[in-house]
Structures are given as structure tokens and as C-alpha cells.
């Protein structure tokens, strides 16, 4: 993924999230990034949940380039474009290559 493609990917992901973003009251919106070790992909979802109601999760993009360096750049670009919180799944014990900071703080039910 060169820089141009990376920017395009980030823009596409943010655009698809914006399409789903309805600015409803008492509603939490966030982006979920999943490390899919079975398919060797990074899956992006846009999730939202109104207080005390069901959670909705809409798939927005699957990144097939399974490289943490590129993912880090992609996430940086997404963070530049949007304020949505990003939640990580399947990254427990993984560190961001440049900052060496932990990606996911808590393990989930699978790990």
C-alpha cells in the first residue's frame, strides 16, 4: 500500500463511517478494528449504540495487507481525519511498531 492508496483507504473508511453517523442523542459511536488472524486481514467496523439499547455494527472495510506498520500509518491517517474513538480487538500483546506502545490494553473473551 503506497502513501496515496493509504490516504485513499483512510478517506474511504472515514467516509463510510460518516455515512452511518446520525448524531443521535445518547448514542455512542466508535470505529472497531479487528486483527483477523484466520483470514490474515484487518477488518474495520463502524459501531453505534444508544443508551440501554442494542449495539449495531456495520462492516466498513477489510484491509488485506496484513502488515502492522502499514496499519499504524492507516490509523494515524484515520485519526487525522476523524474524531471517532477507535477500539481494537485481537491485538492483545501487540505493540505499535514505531511507538512500541501497547495497541490493545485488555484481552477479550477469545484470547
Amino acid at each position, binding site marked *: 500500500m503506497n502513501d496515496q492508496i493509504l490516504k485513499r483507504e483512510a478517506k474511504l473508511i472515514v467516509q463510510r463511517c460518516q455515512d452511518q453517523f446520525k448524531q443521535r442523542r445518547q448514542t455512542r459511536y466508535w470505529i472497531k478494528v479487528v486483527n483477523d488472524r484466520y483470514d490474515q486481514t484487518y477488518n474495520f467496523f463502524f459501531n453505534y449504540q444508544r443508551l440501554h439499547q*442494542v449495539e449495531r*455494527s456495520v*462492516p466498513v472495510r477489510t484491509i488485506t495487507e496484513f502488515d502492522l506498520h502499514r496499519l499504524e500509518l492507516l490509523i494515524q491517517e484515520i485519526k487525522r481525519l476523524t474524531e471517532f474513538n477507535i477500539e481494537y480487538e485481537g491485538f492483545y500483546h501487540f505493540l505499535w511498531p514505531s511507538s512500541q506502545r501497547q495497541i490493545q490494553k485488555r484481552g477479550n473473551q*477469545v484470547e
Partner: protein
Amino acid sequence: MDYSHEPHGVYFLIDNKSFYASVECVSRGLEPLKTCLVVMSEADNTNGGLILATSPMAKQLFHITNVSRRRDLPDDPRLIIVPPRMNLYIKKNLQINTIFQRFVADEDLYPYSIDESILDLTHSWRLFGSSPQQVAQLIQDTVHKELGLRLTVGIGENPLQAKIALDVYAKHDQNFIGQVTYATVPTKLWTISNLVDVWSIGKRTARHLTRLGITNLFELAHSNPYMLVQEMGIIGAQLFALAWGIDRSKLSQRIKPKDKSLGNSQVLPRDYSQQTEIELVIKEIGQQVAARVRHHHQLTSCLSLSIGFAYAADTDTKRSGFSHECKLEPTDESRLITEQLLRLFRQFWQGEAIRNIAVYCSRLCANTGEQLDLFTPLHRQIKQQQFDHVVDQVRAKFGTTSLVMASSLLRGGTLIRRSALVGGHNGGNSFE
């Protein structure tokens, strides 16, 4: 009962536990058995939302069943609702079947549905373990390790036993494995008290059997087979064999259908009562089916149009719909096919509101040449045929919606919105 002359093999019927829901859980990094997730289609014609799959935990906690509606779902924060991605499920099904091919030869693997496959392990199970159960567990572990999905396995000496083992026993077993053999027919088959739990017995057949005084499989097995045949025809004999766990079908012998047909049907997003709107959808479906006939290099000489009425019209007229056929000269031309469909519709429709439309082309024959018509100028016939083929080529290259009739943009047209669907639900292409 002497089973010595019956076929004795080792058959596995393997099913994915809540397939669509499990695939969605895995792609979100969630454990399929511990997450409350439902896959809900919100296509136009689902009346607010139709539940396609429910994870085991959601079934257990909220008693949600498949084909429930959005209104039946509780507003519980533990529940996750996701849209379907049919193309992803097809891809996963292919991956699973590729894993199965490691355990059986290609000719011994029979995909049965999007989440079920029949494996004939008669000749190969000894290569992988000391008992069929051990092999079943190995297959389960392999799929779980490589794809994260859980399988349920029914084991039997014939496909029927495997299917019943799967439906009745494996789903409730701790290891998700069930087994039925000739020796266990009395303990495992005859003890099934509810007839509709058994594969191939639906509500109507069960009612028919109840009228004959048969309410469970034990009674079916001990009824008079001649009486069953007299009452139900060949199905009676099949049911009697089923009750004794007998299935003589040879899966390797592929059944050749007598007459293949091609068709499409759809449930409309609302009740249609205006003639122009209904005719527009009939035209769209007619063109879609004609394109499929051309794609298969076939010509059709019999058309069938089925119309299902809306519930309201249903109660007014006591008719639930109509279905009629007409013969025509072998053709694959969209124009001729839609003309005939509209003629059929105008002939039999009496102004009812409708909800379902189905179009089928049968009596297909290979398209080996064009039969010219003496009464139409030659260049017009050739031009018409070329027109359809050019449209097909453009659509094949640039997508179905690259070229649509302007009328599809009118109120009531469904073609454009349905073009992204797979099996009537969101295909998910745009997310890749």
C-alpha cells in the same frame, strides 16, 4: 429386521453452528458461542428487518429464532445487530469445503446447502483416527483452528441416519457430535416423539400421518407399509423406510433432472396494486430471466408466471394468487418473453393487490441456431437478437446497473436496488 443387505458406510453430515452469525462473530474477533449477535437483513421487502441468523447465546438468552422480525427483538445492550454479507458466507463455505477435501476424495464430498455438507468417509476414515467420532472431532478441531468456526457433526451408516443424528442429537450434544446406526434405530429413532423434528416430515405430512393414527416414529415403523403406500403413494414407502433408518440412495449417482428450468422470484417491498407498477416489475424479472437463459445458451419454449396476492387481497377474494403457463416458439429474446408474461398477467389479474412475483422459463433446449420468422423482416430479427447480446455484454463488463431501462427509475421499479443483493440479501461487495 435384517439389515445385512442394506448399505453400510460411514457418512458425516456436517453443519456449521449458526453459520452466518458465527462468521460475523469471528470477523469481529468475538467468540461465536459466547456472543449475542443476530444477522438482520434490512432489505426493502423485509418489513423493517428479517433475522437471518442468531448466535447460540442470543437464542438461549432472548429466545430469538431465525426469520423473526425486528419488532420481536428485545432492546438489550448485550445484543449486537449486524447486516448480512452473503458473499463472505459463500467464501467461508468454500473454505470449509476445501478443508473437508483433505479428509475425503472430491467425489465423496457433497455440499448440501450453504452451511451443510455430506461426507462419505466409508473409504477414508481409517486414515485419520481409530473411530468415526475421533475423525469427526479432528475435522471440528481443524476447522475451528483455521477458521474459528464450530461444526456439528451427524454420523450414520447412511446419509439419512447422519442427517437425523445431526438434527436431533448433535445439536444438543456437548461435543456437537451425534451418531445413529442400524443397531441404535430403536433407541434413537423410535424415541423421537415429535414427527416434525425428523428430516423430510413437515407439518402437512405430520398432519396426514396423524390422521392415519401415526403420531411418532415408533408407530410409523410398526404401521402397515401397504396402507402407507395406498394412502400417500411412494412417499409412504419412503417414510416407512425412514422409520427403520433405511436409505438406499447412492450419492455418487447424480440425479439428472427431467426438465431444467430457470427462474427468479421476489417479494415486493410493499403491496402493489397499480397495473403499471406491477407490469414494470414483471418486465424487469422477465428481462433478468431472459438474460440468464441467454447466458446458459438455451432457448425456452414454456413460460410460467406466478403471482402471490397481498394478505389483504387474499382475504377478500379467497384466492392466494395464481400461476399460469404458456407455450411459445423457442426463444431467448427479452422482448418476446416479457410480451408473453404481460399477456398472461393481463389475462388473469383481476385488480388484486400483490406481494410476490415469480417468473420461470422451462422446456429449455440448446441454442444451436436462430429460427427465422417468415413474417418479420430479416434485418429486424437479427438486429433484435444482437441488441440483447450487446446489452448482456455491457452488463457483464460493467455491472447490471450500467444499463437499465429508464422505466426502472420510475416508482415501483426494484431492479436497481436488488442488483447488489445475493440470494435476496446484502451481498457485501461494497465493503471489500
